[in-house]
């Protein structure tokens, strides 16, 4: 029985002062009772807009501009909010993104269950409390938290509460929109396990929306791939892994690799998604597609059945169902993404680990003290950490939030001072610098040797100043260049990070660039001082998965060309394996694992490392 039937649904955003765009363009899909359907999409795909449209929660300036949504045989596309209210939470429930505060901050948790339960069922009073207790047990939270306020719960617990809340009235359909993004891998795993278990037990249909292809593939029966507002592909999960149809899907799958292999290969998709406010011609993915033929740029492909699924791609169709006419330049069918690739061999790592040591961290601890009125609160962020960094080597510092990795980064770059222990840096001119005691002028000079790349490309560039300014400052301060020389050097730097022609970028403001482009600018700025060590704090975490490897490749190239050392900080072991020669794992402020990258991945000594390894999405191994 088809529970949810969507036909040619389109959603437009029409803001008053900006260009309008069609965020969702003629999307059709079916979800059957009890089916687990995954929807994969990256930034600009329109997946969250689609979710809001399905729930009929779109707000101005968005509106449904075409198509239909039928739930349980009833057309709800234009139904009034009053009519919809009956279905809400009784038939259709949802769990929003974990980063949102979906819970009313001034109401106790139990009360927030109560109003939803009382609205849609006949339960009252104690019956409601018993039901809530039952729900809490389902998601494995101690019922004592029923009387808590939302701010007293951790992020993971809040999401579990949201999940329990969604199931309160035994809905037939649950929509989960990025439910675990931003949570620690361990917490993510437990929530996803709960979702899978409960779905099997209670038998509700699921639409699971995420940008993380690994988890989607692990849980879903059927998968939809969305790109630039349109559906690109739809297939049973096993089919998608075995034989992806659309080049974009191949690109998504190609962003994952097996970290245990001797040589790891990971692909990335060059370019960025199209600007939907401009008129589009032909296939939306064509500009970035390695398999595109001429037709792709002029004719938009229809989303139509092919084999076990459906796809919107001329090339895929022609390869499998060749028509009567011969098409020139049709590429050979391939399961792998035929685009640029990032390769890391183990020989390079071996060489790098023989270079001379230039930064030595010895027995470093950091205790944070915060004055709260008259009392002092102590937090031990780092305890007794020691390691060495070598010239031209990439070392990964891996840990979850709260592990102390950011604190260490701050101490190595001189932003903070260790409470005990020492950090010593040997500059290329032989100077021996005691980093832990630097201040003022000497600290500024130190920055000529050690620079930082930050995590969030949106906030690490001043939104009010053009790129030219951001790049020229370190050139003028650290390299003493005059205004004109700094300008031409800035242009050169942009070329180094492949933002060409540089003249097009120098006068732009940060908000005019994409996330990947901004991150390149941030790297260029770090290079401006001509440093010997770059500390990169989660530089790719906020980028879409399919474009991450591009930045990794850039970093690797810089390491090769400039003999740079890199301290790469991340929570993701896969990218650590890709970029780093050596891996250090931090947990609770202590080093729990330390060794050559491949060694650590293949033979982890510590349980925590093993847990992190398990958390890496393995789309190829895990389809069930």
């Amino acid at each position, binding site marked *: 029985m088809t529970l949810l039937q969507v036909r040619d649904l389109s959603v437009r955003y029409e803001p008053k002062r900006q260009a309008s765009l069609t965020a969702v363009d003629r999307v059709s899909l079916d979800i059957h009772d009890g089916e687990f359907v995954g929807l994969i999409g990256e930034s600009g795909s329109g997946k969250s807009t689609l979710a809001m449209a399905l729930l009929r*929660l779109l707000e101005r300036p968005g509106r449904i501009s075409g198509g239909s949504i039928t739930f349980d045989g009833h057309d709800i596309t234009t139904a009034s909010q009053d009519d919809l209210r009956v279905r809400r939470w009784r038939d259709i429930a949802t769990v929003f993104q974990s980063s949102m505060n979906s819970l*009313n901050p*001034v109401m106790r948790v139990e009360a927030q269950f109560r109003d939803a339960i009382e609205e849609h069922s006949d339960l009252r009073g104690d019956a409601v409390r018993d039901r809530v207790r039952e729900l809490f047990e389902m998601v494995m939270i101690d019922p004592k938290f029923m009387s808590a306020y939302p701010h007293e719960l951790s992020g993971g617990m809040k999401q579990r509460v949201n999940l329990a809340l969604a199931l309160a009235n035994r809905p037939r359909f649950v929509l989960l929109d990025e439910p675990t993004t931003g949570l620690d891998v361990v917490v993510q795993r437990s929530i996803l396990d709960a979702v899978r278990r409960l779905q099997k037990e209670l038998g509700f249909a699921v639409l699971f929306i995420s940008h993380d292809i690994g988890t989607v593939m692990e849980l879903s029966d059927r998968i939809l791939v969305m790109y630039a507002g349109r559906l690109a592909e739809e297939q049973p999960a096993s089919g998608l892994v075995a034989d992806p149809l659309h080049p974009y899907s191949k690109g998504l799958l190609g962003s994952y690799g097996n970290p245990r292999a001797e040589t790891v290969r990971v692909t990335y998709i060059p370019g960025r998604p199209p600007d939907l406010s401009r008129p589009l011609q032909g296939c939306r993915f064509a500009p970035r597609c390695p398999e595109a033929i001429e037709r792709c740029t002029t004719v938009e492909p229809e989303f139509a059945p092919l084999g076990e699924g459906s796809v919107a791609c001329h090339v895929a169709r022609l390869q499998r169902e060749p028509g009567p006419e011969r098409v020139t330049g049709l590429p050979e069918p391939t399961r792998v993404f035929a685009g640029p690739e990032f390769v890391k061999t183990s020989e390079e790592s071996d060489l790098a680990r023989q270079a001379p040591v230039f930064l030595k961290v010895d027995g470093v601890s950091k205790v944070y003290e915060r004055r709260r009125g008259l009392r002092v609160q102590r937090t031990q962020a780092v305890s007794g950490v020691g390691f060495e960094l070598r010239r031209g080597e990439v070392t990964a510092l891996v840990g979850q939030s709260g592990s102390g990795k950011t604190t260490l980064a701050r101490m190595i770059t001189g932003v903070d001072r260790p409470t005990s222990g020492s950090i010593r840096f040997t500059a290329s001119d032989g100077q021996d610098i005691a980093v832990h005691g630097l201040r003022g002028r000497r600290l500024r000079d130190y920055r000529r040797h050690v620079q930082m790349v930050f995590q969030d490309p949106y906030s690490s560039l001043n939104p009010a100043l053009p790129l030219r300014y951001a790049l020229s400052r370190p050139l003028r301060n650290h390299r003493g260049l005059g205004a004109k020389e700094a300008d031409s050097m800035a242009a050169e730097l942009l070329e180094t990070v492949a933002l060409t022609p540089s003249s097009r970028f120098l006068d732009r403001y940060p908000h005019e660039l994409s996330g990947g482009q901004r991150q390149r600018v941030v790297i260029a700025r770090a290079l401006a001082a001509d440093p010997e060590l770059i500390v990169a704090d989660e530089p790719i975490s906020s980028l879409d998965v399919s474009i991450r490897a591009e930045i990794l490749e850039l970093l690797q190239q810089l390491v090769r060309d400039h003999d740079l050392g890199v301290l790469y900080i991340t929570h993701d072991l896969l990218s650590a394996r890709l970029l780093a020669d050596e891996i250090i794992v931090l947990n609770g402020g202590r080093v729990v694992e330390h060794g050559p990258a491949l060694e650590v991945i293949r033979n982890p000594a510590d349980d925590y490392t093993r847990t992190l390894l398990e958390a890496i999405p393995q789309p190829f191994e895990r389809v069930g």
Partner: protein
Amino acid sequence: MRYFARRIGFFLATLWAAITLNFVIPRMQPGDPAEVMVQKLAGKDAQLNPAAVEAMRAMLGAPEGSLLEQYVAYLKALARGDFGLSYTYYPYPVTEVIGQAVPWTLVLVGVTQVLAFVIGVTLGAYAAWRRNTRFDGIVTLGSTFVGTLPSFWIALLLLFGFGYVLGWFPTAGGYSTATPGWNAGFIADAAYHSILPAVSLLITAPIGWVLGMRNTMVMNLGEDYIRLARAKGLPDGVVALRYAARNALLPSVTGFAIALGGVLGGSILVETIFDYPGMGRLMGEAIGNRDFPLLQTLLLFIIVGVLVANLIADMLYGVLDPRARKAES
């Protein structure tokens, strides 16, 4: 609980600051403050009676001893309840004079403030709920314009229009013929006299609440928990009140005491116009007569009044917002 203790601590600290301020202001001029005052008064009033000098001395004390000693003497006097003598109403002590006026202002301002809060917050919430509709447009535009009207000007117009021209309301005083006391006749008469002053204040008072509440609520309506509340299929009324307004109310509560200060300021002007026997009119008199002891003590009392209101509002906030009790404020 930590939060409430902090609030009380702040109250005491600010109280101390206000008292000290009161001590400092008259002494900001060089020389013996009492002498200086007397000189000033002498300049204005040729036949200076010794009463004035006495009043000054009583208030300011002799300038013997260091500043610190004078400060201690001042604090002791305050603790005794001795605020000096009023020059205008010599030889009555200032506290008695003010004591007469306090109930009038308390009632006028208290009622006006509470009414303004209720009306303003309700209008603002409703306007936010219906944002960008005509109702919202009218409310926002109207309250912006009305809120800029000086309350004393409105008072003058009302006095003129309803008092003199139409003769519907009395034009001066707190009461006319009835004898003061707790009898129905007096209370009715007093109420009758307070209508015009109250309306003058009430017209301009809710405005801050309307706009503040509306803007806060517009922001709140974009919050995620509102979205979830809607997704839960809760009726509009519940979402508006228990989810949106309840949260949007919080900043307005914090601003309650500050707004009270504004209304008190407005009442000074309005009471003067209507010759209403409250603290405001007293202040006007004190200014005109250069009755510094009275003036200063009035200021102190007003500040204390606002501080107490602030304390109550802060305590209320602690009850309304569970996050405040938990976190550091």
